[in-house]
Each structure stands twice: as structure tokens, then as C-alpha cells.
């Protein structure tokens, strides 16, 4: 989160300074933060005299809330050592504090009903309300990253992370190699990552598609993720940078959501008569293609991206993301943001299971695996405080998310209820960055 102090100056002097920096960087073969553009990061290049910063501190805090559901506070801080040759080593510490309610997976009813959960707790749900459970969790994470340019055409990046929450642990590493061609106008990125996670649900592992009263052996299960990335970015003109990235992720292990359930419903009325634990496959193969574009107008910048995703669970999604950075005055900018997301449902997604029918091998009523739409609207405001070092950014965003609330296979009274009512989500991020 840097404003780039020189870029809002329309003067000839400013233009010449930037051009000289670019020439020096190209000759030195330095690849910095703008590696994707095939140009150097001016802040880390040699030739800028004694003003070259050695350190960068970044902090960002998130406050997030879903209407009637989860609330999250997430502070993050990162310190980065900057080296004159463009190398950098950074460490990030993050915390997540989560409270509130999460959907159980149970179906909304057309009448006030009382159910007994798998743990034996009795609940009463109102008409048309999606059942939820209260929860509380916290998560701490620590990341390390190291970027090292070797020549003008070769840069490597390595990273590792560890995180811990009440019922989940994650340990992973990443690596990426960037090759620059055509004097930095074309960059090829090859990367890979591996995560070794452990799931330790409170109360143990319940037998899939059961009433939850019987537990399976063991208290900890593994989940692994292997990711491969192939990307290319291209400078098309003095103003235009484009990129194309392909990612493949293979997951295996315990991929079931341990606390989610499905309602068992009456075959005539569609009203819930009980609940079963959910069951998901133990492997998942995900693919996505991301096309990105950054275009610089005279002063403003347009960011656009389109992601196409598919996996072997049957989910297909598209994501369109647009940001427009408009310079204001005195190194301030405003950046409106709009995002559209649409996904189809997983093959084993069901709002409910019908009493008396044969159980499928896999079933989940998790709304994140159902047909889904998300629209996000927001804006970022970047600014300097007078006579204070560093740069600030405040990002506020509103999200609305809804599913296919009236599916064609709705049973009885389910046809009179929105089974996936809209969820409103608001979030605010305050970020600060300082080089010294």
C-alpha cells in the first residue's frame, strides 16, 4: 500500500526522475515490487542516494460483520527488510477473532419448529429463518516470505506459513520462479505450494450421514493441499499490463465440515423431522484461470480481472472484479470497487434429505457449496496525514450474497420459503504503510 509519491506530479521534472529510475533499474537488472510489469521498484533500486529505505512496516485491521451472524476482528502486521538489489524478506503476524452465529446446514421451515441437534441440544427456530449455531473462535498466523532477484531475468520467491485455531492447524510453504523476457516486457511465473493441515473438531469426528451420536476413532485428521501455478504477464504498452494465470489445486484428506448437518424432511410437507451429519468426498481437484489487466490513463488506473473456476465436485464459478483508482489531490486517491461472483452447486449439495429414501454417498447442505451469487460494492480512500510519515488507506465494502432459494425440487411447504435468503455483509479495513 504505497501511493508512489512521484506519480501524481505532472511536472516534467517528475516524469524525468521516474524515467531515470526506470533506466537505472533496467540496467541494474533489479526486479522489485513491480516485477510483473518487468520494471523495477523505485523504492528499492540503487541510485536514489541516501533516501533508499531499508525497512517497510505494514499494518491492516479488519472489522467484519454479517447481519445476524458472524463478527470478525482481524489485525495484521508485517515487517519487511528491503535490500538495495531488490531482495526483500518479510514476516507477517495475523490474528482472527471470530464470534457470532453460523448456519448449521439445517433447512428453514414454514412453521415454528423445534429440533434436537446431534449433540442433544434442543433448538427452536422461527418461520423462514435459517437455523444457526453460536460459536467463538480465534486464529493466529505467522508468515515468512523471501524474494530474491539473481539476474535481470530471474527472480525467486519463497514463503512459509503456520496458523493455529481452536480446531484447525495449518503448516505450508510456497515457491515461485519468475523469468523475464524481452527486456522485462514478458514475465513467466512458475510456482507451487504445499499445505499440511490438521482438523481437530470439538466433540470428535461424528459418523457421516448419521444422527451424530456415534463418533469415529481418533481426534485429529489430516488435510493436504498441493498447488501449482503457471502464469504469464505482458507489458502491452506504456500504459497497459495484462496477465494470465492458471492454477491447479489438489486437496485430499478430511474435507468434511465437521459441524454441519442436513435436515431430514417429511416427504409430503417438506418440514424437517430430524438432522444428519454431512459427508463430503476425501479428495478435491480445483482449477482456475485468472485474466488480469491494469491500464493507466493520464492519471487514473483501471484494474480488471476475470476468474473462471471449476472443480471435480461440480462447482463452476466466474468472478468479475473491477477497480478504478482516481487521483484526487495532495497524494490522495479514491478507488471504487465492484465485484460479481456466481457459482453453480456441487453435485452432492442438497437442501435436505427425504425421510425414507436411500441415503447418497455424499451430501452437504453447506450454502457455500450451493448455487450462489455475490455482489460486492466498496471503495478505498488513500491519504497522508499532514506532517506525519507513512500512508493510510481505508477500505469499506458491502457484500450481498444469496442462493437459489426456490429450487425446482422443493418439497411441500419448502416452496413457500426462501431456502437461501440474502445475507448482508459489511467490512472495513484500515491499512497503514511506512518505509524507513
Amino acid at each position, binding site marked *: *500500500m504505497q*501511493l*508512489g509519491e512521484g*506519480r501524481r506530479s505532472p511536472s516534467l521534472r517528475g*516524469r524525468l526522475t*521516474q*524515467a531515470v529510475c*526506470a533506466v537505472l*533499474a*533496467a*540496467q541494474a537488472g533489479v526486479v522489485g*515490487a*513491480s516485477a510483473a*510489469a*518487468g*520494471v523495477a521498484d523505485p523504492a528499492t533500486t540503487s541510485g536514489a542516494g541516501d533516501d533508499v529505505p531499508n525497512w517497510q512496516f505494514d499494518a*491492516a485491521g479488519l472489522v*467484519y460483520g454479517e447481519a445476524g451472524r458472524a463478527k470478525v476482528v*482481524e489485525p495484521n502486521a508485517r515487517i519487511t527488510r528491503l535490500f538495495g538489489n531488490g531482495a526483500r524478506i518479510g514476516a507477517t503476524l495475523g490474528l*482472527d477473532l471470530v464470534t457470532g452465529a453460523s448456519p448449521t446446514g439445517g433447512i428453514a421451515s414454514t412453521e415454528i419448529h423445534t429440533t434436537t441437534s446431534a449433540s442433544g441440544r434442543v433448538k427452536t427456530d422461527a418461520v423462514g429463518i435459517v437455523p444457526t449455531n453460536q460459536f467463538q473462535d480465534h486464529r493466529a*498466523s505467522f508468515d515468512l516470505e523471501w524474494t530474491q532477484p539473481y539476474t535481470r531475468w530471474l527472480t525467486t520467491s519463497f*514463503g512459509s*506459513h503456520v*496458523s493455529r*485455531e481452536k480446531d484447525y492447524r*495449518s503448516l*505450508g510453504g*510456497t515457491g515461485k520462479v519468475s523469468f523475464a523476457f*524481452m527486456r522485462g516486457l514478458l514475465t513467466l511465473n512458475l510456482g*507451487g505450494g504445499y*499445505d499440511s*493441515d490438521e482438523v481437530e473438531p470439538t466433540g470428535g469426528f461424528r459418523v457421516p450421514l448419521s444422527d451424530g451420536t456415534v463418533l469415529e476413532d481418533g481426534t485429529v485428521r489430516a488435510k493436504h*493441499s498441493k*498447488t501449482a*501455478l503457471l502464469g504469464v504477464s*505482458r507489458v502491452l*504498452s*506504456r500504459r497497459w*499490463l*495484462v496477465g494470465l494465470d492458471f492454477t491447479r*489445486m489438489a486437496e485430499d484428506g478430511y474435507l468434511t465440515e465437521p459441524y454441519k448437518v442436513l435436515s431430514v424432511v417429511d416427504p409430503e410437507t417438506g418440514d424437517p423431522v430430524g438432522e444428519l451429519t454431512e459427508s463430503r468426498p476425501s479428495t478435491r481437484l480445483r482449477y*482456475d484461470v*485468472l485474466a488480469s489487466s*491494469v491500464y*493507466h490513463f493520464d492519471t487514473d*488506473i483501471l484494474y480488471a480481472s*476475470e476468474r*473462471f*473456476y471449476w472443480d471435480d465436485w461440480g462447482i463452476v464459478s*466466474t468472478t468479475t472484479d473491477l477497480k478504478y483508482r482516481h487521483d484526487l489531490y495532495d497524494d490522495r486517491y479514491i478507488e471504487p470497487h465492484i465485484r460479481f461472483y456466481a*457459482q453453480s*452447486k*456441487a453435485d452432492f449439495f442438497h437442501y435436505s434429505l427425504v425421510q425414507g429414501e436411500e441415503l447418497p454417498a455424499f451430501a452437504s447442505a453447506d450454502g*457455500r457449496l450451493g448455487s450462489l451469487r455475490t455482489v460486492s460494492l466498496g471503495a*478505498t480512500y488513500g491519504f497522508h496525514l499532514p506532517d506525519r510519515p507513512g500512508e493510510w*488507506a481505508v477500505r469499506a465494502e458491502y*457484500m450481498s450474497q444469496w442462493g437459489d432459494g426456490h429450487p425446482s425440487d422443493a418439497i411441500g411447504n419448502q416452496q413457500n420459503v426462501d431456502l437461501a435468503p440474502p445475507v448482508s*455483509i459489511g*467490512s472495513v479495513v484500515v*491499512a497503514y504503510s511506512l518505509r524507513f
Partner: protein
Amino acid sequence: MKSPRARHCRLLILLLPLTFLGGCATMDVQPWDRDLLAEEAMSFSPEPMITAIDNHIYFSKEGSTGGQEVGGGGCGCN
């Protein structure tokens, strides 16, 4: 509720490599013409910490993931 834009997206994926090839035929961008490209805002993720937070939100609320990162979610939220 099938994804209505899937067909268009596949077409976009097919056409984008052609854009790259077409770009090779454009006029070269010399180092002294890279003043705009040298700006930190001229990158795919100029605010990485905010981007990371946003991606965490989307990852925890939707069934998809991916992009320019090679790591997993690192959390049990999906």
C-alpha cells in the same frame, strides 16, 4: 441455477492468449517510457495486505478459490 457466463468465460480464456501473441507485435516499450509502469500502483495487487484480507473473506464465504497465489487457505473456514 447454472452459471450463465460460463460460455462467455471459456471464450475469453481462448481469446486471451491471442491477445498476448498480438501484444508481441506491438511497439516496444523502452526503459525511458516506463515511467507509468514503474509506479507501484501499476501492479496486479498494489495493496497486498488488503487483497489478502479480501481473499480471506471471499474464500470463507464462497466455494471457489485461486488466482495468483499458490498457497492454501490456511484456515478451517472452508
